[in-house]
Structure formats: C-alpha cells, structure tokens
C-alpha cells in the first residue's frame, strides 16, 4: 500500500508551487481555489458594510452614520454581496472544482477562458470596491432610474462598468460549465446518471448565459444615459423609467435562481449521503431544477406590482410566481422524504444542509406572501422584503455554501476540518441568522421601510434583537475562517472517501492529482446508490463498498 502510494503523482496543490504557477494555471482546481480566496475577500467587505448598518440601526435616530454614508453602505453591501459573492459563490468555487471531477473529465472544456474569468472577476471587483470607497454610490444595488441617471451623486457609471465586466466573468464561467457538461462526460455518464449538483450547476449556467447579457445592455444604457443624457429612460425625452425596471429585473430575478439553484445541488448531495439513502425522486429533482430555471425567467414583474404596471400583467406575474413555487416545493418534499426513516448522521455538512431546508422553506413561503398582489401592496419596500430575500440568499445559499465547503473540504485540501468546531459554527450560524432576520419580518409587517436610516421609536426592540443576531452571525462566519485555515496545516489527513459517498470525485486522491484521474473512470451506476439497511453503497463506477 505504502509502496504504491509513493508512486502516486503529486496533488494539484503540491505539483508546482511558484506564484507564477498559480497565477497562470489552467487547472480548474487551482482556479477554484483562487476564486475561493477572491470571494472570501469580497464577502468580508460586504459583511463589514452590513455590520455597520446593523450597528447604526441600534438607535431609532440612527447611531453614528450620516444619511449619505448610510445610503452608500447599503448600496455597497448589496452590490458586493450580489455580484462579487453570491453569484459566483458556489458555481465559481465548488462548481469549478467539482464539475469536471463529478463527470469524470480531466479539466473544463476551456481552461484558459476559466483563468481569464478569474482575472475579469478580480478586475471588476477591485474596481467596484475602489469606487465604492472613494466616493460611493447611493442608488441601492438596483440602480433605479431616473434617480441613478439624473439625480444621484457618486460613481454610478464606474459601478455600472464594474458590474458590466463582472458579467463577462459570469458568462465565461457559465459557458465553460455548459459546454463541459455536454461534451466531456466520462464513458457511461449519461444525463440521468449525473449527480444533482451537476444538474444544478448546469441549470444555473443556462440562467447566467441568458440573463446576464440583458443586464449588460441595461447597464450600458444606464451609463450612456448618465454620461450623455440620451433619454432612453428619461420621460422628458420620451423614455420610460419603468422600462429600466423591466430590463433590470429580467436579469435580477433569474439572478436569485442563479444564487439558490447551486445551493439546492449542494444540499441534495449532502442530504442523501448523510441519510444513507438514495435521493427520493431523482428524475423529479432534475426536472424541478430545469423548470425553476425556465419559469424563473417569467416572474420578474412581481418586483413591480406597485410601480404602475397594468393589472393584467400584475395578475399574470403573480400567477407565474405561484407556479415557480411548485418545483421548489417538490425539491423540499423530496429532501424531506429522503430523510424519512433514515439513520441520519449529524456531521457539520448535514447540519448546514438541514438548516438550509428550514430557512429556504420559510424564505420561499414568505415569497408567496409577497407574490400575492393584495399583501404585496402593504409589504412592498419594507423590511419584510429584506427578511424574505435574506432567508433565501443568506439562510439558503450561504448555509449551503458553508455546508458544501465542509463536505468537500477533505477532497479539496486533503485534510479534515475539526468536526466539533464545524458543528458549533453550523448551529451558531442558524441561531444567529434567525435572530437577525425573523425580527425583520415583524418590522416589515409593522411598516418599517427598507433603506431608511432612522425609524420610529416603538420599533427599537425588534431592531436591537436583529442587531444582536447579526453580531452572533458575524462570529459564526469568522469561525470557519480560523479553523479551516488551521486545518490546512494541523488537520487530520483525509483518505479518498471519508464520507463513503458514491460520486466520481471520491474515487480519486484527496487532494486530486493535476488532471484529476489517473485513468478515466467508467460509469455504470446512477448516483446515490446508498443502502439504508447496512450503510453499504455502490460508487458510480459500479464497485460495491461494505
């Protein structure tokens, strides 16, 4: 055993370790790690803005920020978190790392494009952060016209350019994923043998490809309008500001599914592994992902119920919103049935995944409240909306991101994270999250508008609770930074398949060698052949493991 181990090629981490070998690498695994470093940086930039906002809202009169600064902070929080953390979060890191491994490929289809995407991402991110620091933007992440084009002070054009460049990075990565999934699957890896994570990344990539160009055009028009006053969104010149909202949400609502579909993929992998049961309704899960991706393109108008769209279109968008909830609910039910009667192992990834199901469900259900025309009139632009989308994006996506990070950490680094700390952080995150955002539902219901820097004194209790929760949440996010870094050096060494999971990624070494597999695997089985009776499983190359 030890003799053969010595002959194994070096892992992707140790193969060559100059700075140049990293910065010019074409290895999808190294690029994934580089994306991981970049988005972690932006996550904490966005997090600092959120912390300042919550501290400020401790007092009804506003604790310490000037109104102008406050507006710039929530804009910075939104722009950084949406485009420089959430959109790339799971796809560019875990997806980049795992997609070729899971389908048995040696790399992505276009490795140079993959590296280029990372450079575009950092260029746009640093540009955005620079301009958000030196002058800031006060429009909110939505850049609504005519405020953003005619009245706002600040670096609107620079921010739009940054997000525009960021879109190219998104498109490059998504294009790579789609083409790789179509063309580079290992022999025997049919579409219905693909792990659900691959299906999720595929569906996400389709949305990225079709929605992002519309945002690019919208931002180009915004920049031109602000720069030259071309009048496309200016009513005085015949333009229509509402058209901006249509175009913006045509991208930005599907963007919500860009954020949450990969999370669903991660959770599907974790749930079935730690329940030691095949996922319930595998094909239904695949179809649900694609259905969400498609219908997600036809619900954007529910952001505009109170903006002055016609009653007919409001009714249609409301109905489409209810319809898109159906495949989402199918997924929740299937996860639940997978857990039913299972002998569940409560390791840290599973705690994150279970947290995801609860928080995503609550976030989804409150989405229906907002998708209902009558209740939306009351709740539009209140903290109810803020709480709703944070339940999906933070409670859902970020939980799944951390769950996936813990689940695949041993594969990525070859080391185990400290399990007890992992569980502690997972539970702390769940508690902190709920304490932060449950009060915001109530605040919204009581009528507190979003983006205000002061509020009425009778709302202070709920705001203080929310800020207290945010401080717990901040600790829960900082913890993994420390113990995961610690584990890089002192963590217990991991073997190839510590979770006894079925996917191809577990067949290769931890961490994998440069081109993933010494020999391209032959796939004979679908994913998730776990035996609930005795904990045995059949990996996707057809080998039975007791």
């Amino acid at each position: 055993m030890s003799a053969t181990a010595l002959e194994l090629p070096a892992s992707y981490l140790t193969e060559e370790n100059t700075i140049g070998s990293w910065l010019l690498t074409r290895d999808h695994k190294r690029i994934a790690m580089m994306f991981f470093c970049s988005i972690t940086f932006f996550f904490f930039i966005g997090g600092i803005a959120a912390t300042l906002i919550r501290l400020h809202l401790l007092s009804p009169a506003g604790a310490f920020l000037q109104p102008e600064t406050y507006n710039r902070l929530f804009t910075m929080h939104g722009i950084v978190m949406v485009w420089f953390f959430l959109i790339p979060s799971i796809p560019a890191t875990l997806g980049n790392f795992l997609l070729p491994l899971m389908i048995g490929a040696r790399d992505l289809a276009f490795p140079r494009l993959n590296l280029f995407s990372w450079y575009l991402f950092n260029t746009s991110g640093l540009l955005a952060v620079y301009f958000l620091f030196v002058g800031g933007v006060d429009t909110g992440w939505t850049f609504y016209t005519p405020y953003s084009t005619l009245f706002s002070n600040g670096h609107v054009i620079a921010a739009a350019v940054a997000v525009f460049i960021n879109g190219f990075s998104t498109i490059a990565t998504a294009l790579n994923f789609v083409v790789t999934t179509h063309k580079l699957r290992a022999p025997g890896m049919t579409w219905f043998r693909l792990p659900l994570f691959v299906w999720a990344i595929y569906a996400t990539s389709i949305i990225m490809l079709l929605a992002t160009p519309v945002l690019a055009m919208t931002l180009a028009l915004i920049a031109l309008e602000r720069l030259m006053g071309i009048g496309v969104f200016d009513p005085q010149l015949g333009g229509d500001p509402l058209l901006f909202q249509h175009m913006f949400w045509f991208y930005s609502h599907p963007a919500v599914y860009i954020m949450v579909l990969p999370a669903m993929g991660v959770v599907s992998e974790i749930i079935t592994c730690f329940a030691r049961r095949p996922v319930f309704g595998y094909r239904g899960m695949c179809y649900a992902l694609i259905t969400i991706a498609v219908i997600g393109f036809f619900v954007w108008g529910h952001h505009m119920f109170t903006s002055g769209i016609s009653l007919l279109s409001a009714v249609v968008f409301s109905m489409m919103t209810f319809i898109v909830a159906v495949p989402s609910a199918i997924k929740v039910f299937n996860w639940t049935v997978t857990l039913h009667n299972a002998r569940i192992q409560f390791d840290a990834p599973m705690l994150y995944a279970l947290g995801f199901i609860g928080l995503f469900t609550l976030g989804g259900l409150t989405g229906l409240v907002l998708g209902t025309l009558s209740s939306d009139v009351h709740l539009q632009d209140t903290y109810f909306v803020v709480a709703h989308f944070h339940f999906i994006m933070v409670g859902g996506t970020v939980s799944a991101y951390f769950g996936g990070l813990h689940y695949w950490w041993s594969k990525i680094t070859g080391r185990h994270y400290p399990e007890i700390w992992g569980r502690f952080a997972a539970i702390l995150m769940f508690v902190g999250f709920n304490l932060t955002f449950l009060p915001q539902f109530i605040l919204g219901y009581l009528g507190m508008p979003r983006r205000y820097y002061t509020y009425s004194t009778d709302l202070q209790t709920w705001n203080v609770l929310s800020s207290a929760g945010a401080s717990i949440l901040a600790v829960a996010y900082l913890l993994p930074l420390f113990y995961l870094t610690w584990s890089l050096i002192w963590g217990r060494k991991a073997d190839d398949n510590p979770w006894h999971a079925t996917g191809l990624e577990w067949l290769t070494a931890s961490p994998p060698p440069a081109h993933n597999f010494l020999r391209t695997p032959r796939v004979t089985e679908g994913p998730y052949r776990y035996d609930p009776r005795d904990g045995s499983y059949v990996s996707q190359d057809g080998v039975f493991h007791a």
Partner: protein
Amino acid sequence: MPPVEPGVQYADLEQQSETAQLGMWVFIATEVLFFGALIATYVLYRASYPAQFRIAGHDSLILLGSINQAILVTSSLTMVLAIRAARLADRRALVRLLLATAALGFAFIGVKGYEYARDAASHSVPVIDFVFKHGYRAPAELFWTFYFIATGIHAVHLSIGIVLVLILAARAARGAFTPLYHAPLEVVGLYWSFVDCVWFFLFACIYPLGRAGI
C-alpha cells in the same frame, strides 16, 4: 508542420473541434440576448411613438444600408468558401478567401463611416448635434439614439471579427490548417455569420421603416 495534439481534457481532435463549436454557439446565444434587449427597447418605443419613428426612419439612408447588407451577405459566402477550401486542403484559396472576407468587412466599415458622416451633416446625432427638423419631436431623437447605439455595437463586433479573420489568414498562410484540423475556422465562421445575421435585424429595424408605410 507537426501534427496538432488535442488538449489534455479531450480524447481526440474531433471532440475538441465539436466542443469549440458548441462553445461558440453558446456564446452566440448570449449575444442574441444582448442585442435582443436593445432591439426589444427599440420595438417598445417604436410601438409607443409610431408617427415620430416613421418620420425619423424616413431620414435614414437606405441606399447605403442596402449596399452594406449586400457586402455582409457576400462576406459570409466567402467565409464559408474559405472553410471549404480548408477541407479541400487548398491553402492558396483559403488565404485568398479569408483576405476577401476581411476586405468585405473593411468595406462595410467604410460605407458605415461614410453613412455616419452624412448623418452628422444632416444634424442627426443625438445629444451632440441634433436638429429637430420637419415635424421632429422628442421621441424622434430616440430613434437616432437607437440607430447609433445598435450600429455602433454591431460595428465593434464586426471589427473584432475582422481582426480574428486576419489572424486566421496569417495562420493559414503558414499552413496551420489541414483537412483534419481547422476548428478555429469553423468557430470564427460561426461568429462571422452571426454578426451578419444581426445586421439583417438592424437593417429591418432602421431603414424600411417610414418608407413602406409601416
């Protein structure tokens, strides 16, 4: 020339070529949405201000637009013939056809530049130099805004295409392409034809309007 090796992630050159072409098709899909957003904007405003758009559209220079249409369609033909020449291992024809494609691209840009100059001379450049002549009101300016943004973005795409075709011509002259390996020609050919297709839509949006009574 040594035989071309496929990338490590591919089993053979054929898989690599198919993958590269699929990559271009997917990219074209994103481009359709990019131009689609702009054309949708145009369609909306045209529906909102039919009379103003008709008056403004009548001032577009349909003769130059039509010449450009003919130039671009011909360039797609020479591009396709270039790929055929590569398949037949006819290097001389390949290089000549690629150069002809690039030359037609330049001709398009030249005609477009002349057209822009004529537009500027009749004070039809929004914001910078715009005169509200014979019955123009504010929305007429929107027509010209669309005209310049759309044809400008199209010209940028075409310029990128010309650079790509010239690079291919240089590589072809050195004998880089064989009947077995000419994937870059196929990929750039797809892009070229797409840019050609976009012009079909832009032509239809800009020139016939206000002339055919629609």
